[in-house]
């Protein structure tokens, strides 16, 4: 990659500083180290960093995105685990199940991001809980036509989100 020398310089000059910044935000040095790496991975993915006037401002912008997506995933995971903990049975999933389900929920969350809450619910009731349109309409107190409209909206949204993700990471498909 032609941009590599300047990325290396960026790393050498600023990674300690970035790590310290992230540690202040997170209160954990290991986590900060992970997210520092993630930030530089994003630098590598960026197109042109040949001449940066404000390298730290640039790094902070990327780091903030990394931090935002980290918190988002952490919140999602916490909401999931809280829901599990609220159930009557004790549970102890294998590490494999834990990772698979967490990843599945994150994927769904990305596809559903930005979709209105009711359409989200309708889609999950239908596809995840396998309820019929009639059952869903009764459960949330709307008409059958509304359920159908929400389903269509939700699937269209997922399709668009899926297209967007595929377009953003072309190397992931090759």
């Amino acid at each position, binding site marked *: 990659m032609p941009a590599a020398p300047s990325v290396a310089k960026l790393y050498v000059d600023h990674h300690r500083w970035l790590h310290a910044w992230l540690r202040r935000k*997170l*209160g*954990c040095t290991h*986590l900060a180290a992970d997210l520092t790496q993630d930030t530089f991975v994003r630098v590598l993915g960026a197109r042109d960093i040949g001449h940066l006037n404000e390298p730290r401002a640039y790094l902070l912008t990327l780091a903030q995105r990394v931090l935002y997506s980290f918190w988002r995933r*952490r*919140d*999602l*995971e*916490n*909401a*999931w*685990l*809280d*829901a*599990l*903990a*609220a*159930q009557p*049975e*004790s*549970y*102890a*999933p*294998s*590490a494999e*199940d*834990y990772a*698979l*389900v967490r*990843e*599945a*929920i994150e*994927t*769904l*969350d990305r*596809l559903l991001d930005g979709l209105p*809450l009711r359409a*989200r*619910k309708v889609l*999950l*009731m*239908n*596809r*995840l*809980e396998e*309820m*019929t*349109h*009639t059952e869903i309409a009764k459960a949330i107190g709307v008409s059958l036509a509304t359920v*159908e409209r929400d*389903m*269509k*909206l939700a*699937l*269209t*949204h*997922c*399709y*668009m989100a*899926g297209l967007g993700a595929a377009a953003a990471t072309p190397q992931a498909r090759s």
Partner: protein
Amino acid sequence: MNARQLDPIAEAAIDWLVRLDSGTAGADDHAAFARWLHADPRHEAVWRTISGLLDQPLAAIKDADTRLPGQRHAAHRALTAPARRKALRRGTAMLLLLGLGSYALNRQQPLLGLSADVHTATGERRQVQLADGSTLILNARSAVDIEFSAQTRLLRLRRGTLLIHTAADRQRPLIVATEHGEARALGTRFAVQLQDNHSELAVLEHSVRLTTADGSEQTFAAGSAARYDASGIHPMAESAAPLAAWADGQLDVRDRPLAELIAALRPYKRGYLQVSPQAAVLRVFGVFPLDDPDATLHALAETQPIAIRRYGPWLTVVEHQNEIR
């Protein structure tokens, strides 16, 4: 809301998806769908893309649900929590409220005087009603001194963990003190745990102001947690709920080292519970009953590469399977 134009094939595929999964699709619909699908190779390609997008993550959750029922429901709830942080808080508060009515507490003490020392033994959790109307729950192997005066309501945590639901009293602040600092209630419910080198705060409702010996001061809101010692305060990334699950008789661990879980079980198990360094670093998740530590160890051995050896009632050793052959 979708600014980009949806191509007609995709739109048709989505219509089919809605129709076929409606619960009322009949043989006619399936036949008509098959005709559409085979009418044009592009139909099939788009159909695969659209149905495949959701099928993979949905299948993973349904699959896990067959092994551990409740996964579907939990995933659904996580994905529809609108403002997740807020929802998290509400869920937590409810969990604890429900719990309050049904604690399997070993002893209940009605009203306690203005100053008293309360402590609990191994495997014992105790709920205490304080003179001001506050409710104190003390975890197993814990000790607290209660010092109420005209100016303050002071709880000195000497050992272990407590959870307090404070009664309102504008004149007298309620403070939980450990050797590492003070947690001042701002009308609230929170838990404090004293460990060897630091203390931990978990805020369940409203907020709490922490002050440490070096003068650091920080306010924490519901759902947040912090670690503190004499030299400062460190916010924790974990949510507060699992740190206070013990008050419901549960151990709620989320990707934590096994050593932490064992440490939380110790006050509930007679004799000494030892964990080898190699087993101590295994990451564990799960909700386990506190009141039956042997069952919890047994459940752990089913999902983790560990072996449990008992040497009479006094010593139980948890080892990594690699160490025992």
